[in-house]
């Protein structure tokens, strides 16, 4: 285990209050950043090597660089707190326990982008994180951390907390923007990109909670200190949400490059009930699954996971033990994606449900030879053919589970044995 940046103070009493936050070293980064030129702030974030922690892993400083400041229109910053990728629950910890860290990071980002109004879009189900963040924002205003002339500087900034209402797709940045504008959370076609034409048609930058929460460290300790962590291309630390068949589920902060197997055995306390490992989905439900025999040399960073054929994604680390029925896992996730499809574009709206229906048929012992090929060909026509990356997200688990565990699917199709697995339950659909 290594240096903690994001979770350093989450266990402190009173960390979610302004005084508690300042006592634990808060606001230092913001004070330093406000003394720099915004261009310099962007440059230092580029130098730090920070990459977007929402899932795409795009360099944050570069993303900020796309936002024009001379259009005469306001620039908006949006904090994406719509954490809804199955297996991911890391941002919640920051919002519940150290919300000022996120707020400080947002003010730094807003200063760099020249934004005077920002929004936090928190998923509707996160009532408790919502309330804690709301209390923090109110206190921040009362203590001069938000509003006019922040901390005595020339920079003024307003912040609005917006609560979603239950839609996975609002985690996609243009879906989020549409939702925030009062529309259905259906993603927009690109171009134009949000950096140029986002919220209310103005230049907009959307960053994940975890990404923003890193910024106070980068400016209090210096970008060099951040860049010194992690691997050559995956700098810094990452929050990993560990869940599934393990002894110690929870949110852990690791230095990027940390060995996956060590994380599973040490932090997660190993596979539960003394069972054997079957598979790991390392980056949230939308990334390809790794079989137990594939994890030996893999490290938790962008490049190592990519080389292993999967992704770091949002860091949703789901562990499956030897009892997991992969047909049911596929069905469970297909159900999720079918339910969450926004319904806008054809391949995802129709294809997503079709995938689910075929998996359901297979799981109930009514599969027919050719079903796997059918799903595979559907998936290859969904991926890359949709308005937003949801299409790719929905086909990835379906295709990778069939590819990595073909014998389980074949067996169910040929033998038609009705599943007795705990995942096979019929309620709700």
């Amino acid at each position: 285990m290594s240096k903690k940046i994001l979770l350093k103070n989450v266990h402190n009493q009173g960390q979610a209050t302004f005084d508690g936050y300042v006592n634990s070293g808060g606001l230092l980064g913001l004070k330093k950043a406000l003394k720099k030129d915004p261009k310099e702030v962007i440059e230092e974030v580029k130098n730090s090597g920070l990459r977007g922690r929402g899932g795409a892993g795009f360099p944050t400083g570069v993303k900020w660089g796309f936002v024009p400041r001379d259009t005469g229109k306001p620039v908006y910053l949006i904090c994406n707190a719509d954490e809804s990728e199955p297996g991911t629950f890391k941002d919640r910890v920051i919002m519940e326990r150290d919300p000022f860290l996120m707020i400080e990071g947002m003010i730094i980002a807003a200063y760099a982008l020249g934004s005077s109004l920002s929004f936090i879009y928190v998923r509707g189900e996160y009532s408790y994180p919502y309330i804690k963040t709301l209390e923090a924002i109110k206190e921040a205003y009362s203590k001069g951390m938000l509003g006019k002339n922040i901390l005595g500087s020339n920079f003024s900034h307003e912040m609005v907390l917006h609560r979603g209402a239950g839609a996975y797709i609002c985690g996609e940045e243009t879906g989020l923007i549409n939702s925030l504008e009062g529309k259905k959370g259906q993603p927009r076609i690109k171009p134009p990109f949000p950096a140029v034409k986002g919220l209310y048609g103005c230049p907009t930058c959307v960053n994940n909670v975890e990404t923003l929460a890193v910024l106070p460290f980068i400016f209090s300790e210096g970008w060099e200190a951040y860049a010194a962590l992690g691997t050559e291309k995956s700098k810094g630390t990452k929050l990993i949400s560990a869940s599934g068949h393990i002894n110690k589920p929870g949110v852990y902060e690791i230095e990027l490059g940390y060995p996956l197997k060590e994380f599973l055995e040490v932090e997660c306390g190993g596979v539960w009930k003394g069972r054997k490992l079957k598979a790991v989905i390392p980056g949230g439900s939308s990334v390809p699954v790794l079989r137990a025999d594939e994890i030996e040399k893999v490290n938790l960073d962008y490049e190592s996971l990519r080389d292993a054929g999967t992704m770091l994604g949002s860091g949703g680390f789901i562990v499956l033990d030897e009892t997991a029925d992969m047909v049911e896992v596929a069905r469970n996730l297909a159900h999720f994606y079918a339910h969450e499809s926004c319904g806008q574009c054809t391949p995802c709206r129709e294809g997503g449900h079709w995938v689910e229906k075929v998996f359901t048929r297979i799981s109930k012992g009514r599969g027919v030879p050719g079903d796997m090929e059918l799903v595979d060909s559907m998936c290859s026509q969904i991926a890359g053919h949709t308005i937003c990356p949801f299409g790719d997200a929905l086909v990835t688990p379906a295709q990778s589970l069939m590819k990595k565990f073909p014998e389980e699917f074949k067996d169910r199709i040929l033998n038609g044995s009705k599943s007795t697995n705990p995942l096979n339950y019929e309620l709700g659909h």
Partner: protein
Amino acid sequence: MSETVNLTIDGKALSVPKGTNLIEAAKKLGILIPHYCYHPDLSIAGNCRMCQVAVKGAPKLTIACNTQVTEGMEVATNSKEVKDAQSATLEFILINHPLDCTVCDQAGHCKLQDYHFEYNAKPSRFLEEKEHKPKAVPLGPTVMLDGERCIMCTRCIRFCDEVTKTSELGMLNRGDRSVISINPGRELDNPLSGSVVDLCPVGALTHRNWRFNSRIWFTKQVDSVCPGCSTGCNVKVAVRDKQVVQVKARYNSNVNKEWLCDEGRYGFHRFLPETRVLEPLINGKVASLDEALTKASKMFDDKTAIFLSPDLLFEEFSLISKFIETLPVKPFTCVQYKKRELSEVEKILVSPDYAANFKSAQNFGLASEDPSTQYIEGIAKLKEGSFSSVWIIGDRGIEEVEGISLPVNSVGFFTNAENNLKPGIVLPARSILEKSGLYLNKDLRLQFIDRLIDFPSNTEPEWRLINKIAEKRGKKLTDAQSDRDLTLSVLNPEISIFTLKEQGGVRI
């Protein structure tokens, strides 16, 4: 001149103005990129995914509707990858479609059928049960929805949001439970509501008036222009057994785009009277045409008035103006013109009149710059008894009845036997739906109207009646034997009927 961009589509080079999208660029080469949600006059939705094409250098297929041309771009609309995507998109669209073509009004002019035949034509691999959605849902007085046939292109919603700005329609729910709907208590009843049926590429929206009227392949479809007002909206009219079965907007970017008002669309048949004047009448008694014409030809004196219907053809106004020049005393003329108040939505399309071709009358000096006042004056004088000879050319030459008594020397060119004005001589004329010729719209755009319906024998177009009267007075005006001959005689040689049809009219 705006900046142009050079590119190739399927290996063919072309230059188009900067900002053109790939669907429009391909059209210029005669290449159809299939699409459902794209419409040139609505915002880009990009949701149907039917128009995906391959652009060299792009990592994946791109939708043509949302891709603007760039210099040196190389586009393929028929590569294997593109064809596979088109085929897959159709398979996806059709999995929940009820495939009820046998009872669907859209069958025969349905983009799902056409595209399936052209781009997929494979049996479905879908073995599951289809999603069920509400069917035969009235959205308002004019339009019926079949939720299962809908492919969620949202053209109808965008029309109501962006064109009429009345926002009656929305897409509820999400995923494959999505369905087009109104909010209870606010129907789709704006004055252009029927346009959403034209915009619907499939059979999800149908006209309540015309449901199950006729299979489209049993109808004759004719390109025409709506005679409802001086906008001159372009229409395609389906006709069967001398009846109007359906009216569709015909795209004309300079006139009506692809919109049409409900009054014009659903009232198209109003130009065909139920009871026809089929024989000449003299004082209410059947007479021979020759006798009636001979008698009429003598009814010109120094107090003659000619009331013209605004439905007459450009050519007819031309002929009438020539005829007037042969008369010893210039008669009073006016075109029947009433102003109308328009709602905000009507103003998008409708002109503030019921006078489709009054501009032609003005063009030939038969109506003044202020046709409304002139007509009111004419009627006042008529009531005062200032005219000793009155000619009403076309049923709608005079619309008032109250307080009007025609002098003995009066002639009406009528189609409607129930016209309450009873002139001394009635001549059997033709409805505008039974003639072909030219209309001049409010923007001075000359457009060609084709004959929709076969005329009854014994009736004559107004121009021929005028010509015969002129002949009786010793001055034949034209040698034209048919509507078409007459049209060609008034057209400038550089403009052909073909040009008029191809270009959606010509400004004069």
